[in-house]
């Protein structure tokens, strides 16, 4: 059964995209030439592969540049999410059971509003005569409005804001299971609370950290709504390029090649995650 789902929702779409990535673009419906053609007159099956889509990816510095930029944005956002999310998850996991549920509710609450709407709300907050600038101006802290919107800063704010729950929840579920007598044992053996945290709590929360980082990093690399609404216009992210190729230029073959490229880039962290999980699983046996 899981294989069936995997086949329907992953393997088949992937195969289609993979196929399109080798096609020529044609200005018609569906937008690309078929790979295999049955030629009636010569009674032959002709396959026409087009590697040019991938060549574009490697040769056009725009693609390499956007790939690298996307990885950088995703990496920095992930680190920021971790730095913000860890203390929050820790505080929730250590709070009284009744307040704990309230905190968790508050973490999940933003999901009740449309993601798009929440990103738009950030425009209202960040723009030149937006809430933040107006408040700072009226308090006399600044006398010129700050340029916040359409910057890298805005993209980081948007991504960290949107993906923070995906960092907090796996961290929380890990931290909440910790046996607190381990910390008592560490204290008993002479470790101050700070030291005990780095020696005991932090290493034991690694599975939560890894899960949270991947849940933030992977979608953040391919993110296109946040950078296209809040980000710079002179520096695109790969998700934006991909959607522009699909829907703007209607160049499906190149867009498919970009998608495959993105997948290859993300394959590495996913494989690392899988190996890590495997190790954890083996360690937790018996």
């Amino acid at each position, binding site marked *: 059964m899981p294989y069936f789902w995997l086949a329907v929702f992953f393997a088949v779409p992937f195969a289609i995209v993979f196929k399109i990535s080798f096609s020529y673009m044609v200005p018609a419906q569906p937008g690309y030439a078929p790979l295999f053609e049955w030629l009636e007159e010569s009674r032959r099956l002709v396959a026409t592969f087009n590697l040019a889509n991938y060549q574009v990816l490697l040769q056009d510095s725009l693609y390499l540049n956007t790939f690298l930029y996307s990885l950088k944005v995703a990496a920095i956002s992930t680190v920021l999410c971790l730095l913000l999310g860890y203390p929050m998850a820790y505080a929730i996991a250590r709070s009284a059971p009744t307040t704990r549920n309230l905190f968790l509710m508050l973490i999940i609450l933003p999901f009740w509003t449309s993601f798009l709407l929440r990103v738009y709300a950030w425009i209202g907050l960040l723009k030149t005569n937006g809430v933040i600038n107006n408040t700072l101006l009226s308090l006399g802290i600044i006398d010129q409005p700050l340029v916040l919107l359409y910057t890298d800063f805005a993209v980081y704010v948007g991504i960290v804001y949107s993906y923070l729950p995906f960092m907090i929840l796996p961290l929380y579920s890990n931290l909440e299971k910790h*046996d607190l007598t*381990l910390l*008592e*044992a560490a204290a*008993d*053996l002479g*470790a101050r609370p700070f030291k005990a945290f780095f020696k005991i709590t932090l*290493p034991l929360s690694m599975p939560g950290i890894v899960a949270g980082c991947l849940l933030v990093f992977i979608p953040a690399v391919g993110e296109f709504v946040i950078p296209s609404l809040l980000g710079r216009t002179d520096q695109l992210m790969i998700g934006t390029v991909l959607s522009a190729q699909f829907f703007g230029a209607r160049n499906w073959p190149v867009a498919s090649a970009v998608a495959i490229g993105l997948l290859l880039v993300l394959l590495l962290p996913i494989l690392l995650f899988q190996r890590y999980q495997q190790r954890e699983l083996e360690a937790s046996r*018996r």
Partner: protein
Amino acid sequence: MAERVVDRQNQYLRIESVTKRFGDFVAVDNVSLSIFKGEIFCLLGGSGCGKTTLLRMLAGFESPTSGRILIDGQDMSGIPPYERPVNMMFQSYALFPHMTVAANVAFGLEQEGVARPEIERRVREMLDIVKLGEFAKRKPHQLSGGQRQRVALARALVKKPKLLLLDEPLGALDKKLREHTQFELINLQEQLGVTFVVVTHDQEEAMTLASRIGVMNKGQIVQVGTPTEIYEFPNSRFVADFIGSVNMFEGRLIEDEPGHVRIRCDDLDTTVFVSHGISAAPDARVFVAIRPEKIEMTRGQAAEGENCVGGVVREIAYMGDMSVYLVRLDGGRTVRVTIPNIERHEERIVWDERVVLRWQPSSPVVLTQ
């Protein structure tokens, strides 16, 4: 086995009128106690009697509401757990699951800032003592329960604490292993000379381990003494009842001499003659406690004289080394008697036989509270 060196002059651990309240609940109620250097002291009591709270106050995880604790003359008030010369073996062992056995044992020494070669030497030495030398590289989840217990012990002992606290040290082990480990623990303590404070609810564990036992009830220490003193000379009905099993009869003092007393019990058709004096008001209400193994049982119809009653066997539990008989007295009360099974081919007393029960004048314990 080496003789345990207990320095009775040295009150190594002194607990002075310590009280601990959690809100309205008094967990530990005005406990004062002295523990000598080099002894194994057991705090024995049922769940919720305050023994674990007292132990946690010694470790520094809880602080007394009032009173103070001195270790080797040093007042422990306000000293956090990580600065106390005390180590604890946790009931769950609390081994660090992400560290190897060697790293677990080394942890405490690392906190002290001991040099690396010195740490390695002491860890190896300690693991050899608990016979885990070859398991140094294993993780805790790759060990059996008994091995984990020994890692926990090694980890707590490697720092050479002034006081080792053990919370139900054998609670998680099965019966066979528990017996074996008890003796190992005693040997180890004699070898290293560390003062042990053990918390347990298991009287057997307390009896075999302890040089002295402190029985706790409702937050108070009700009796302190050697295992023999606690068993043979309980000072209250609670202690007599809690340690081992006992037959208890309510009675009235009818003769009170310095050398002996006579007690009339309503449940017994006889007067109880006790060959030692007690301190109680004449005609006072007292309790006579007789241990099941101190009662002699013979076949017979009539019971005559003092310390002698007749009855009928109602239940027999054959335990192998001994048998437990429940005998219904003619007065209606049921008495528990244990008889060692010395002869293999003996014709044992069976159900519904009439028997006579007798005991020595020195056997009953007279309790006034």
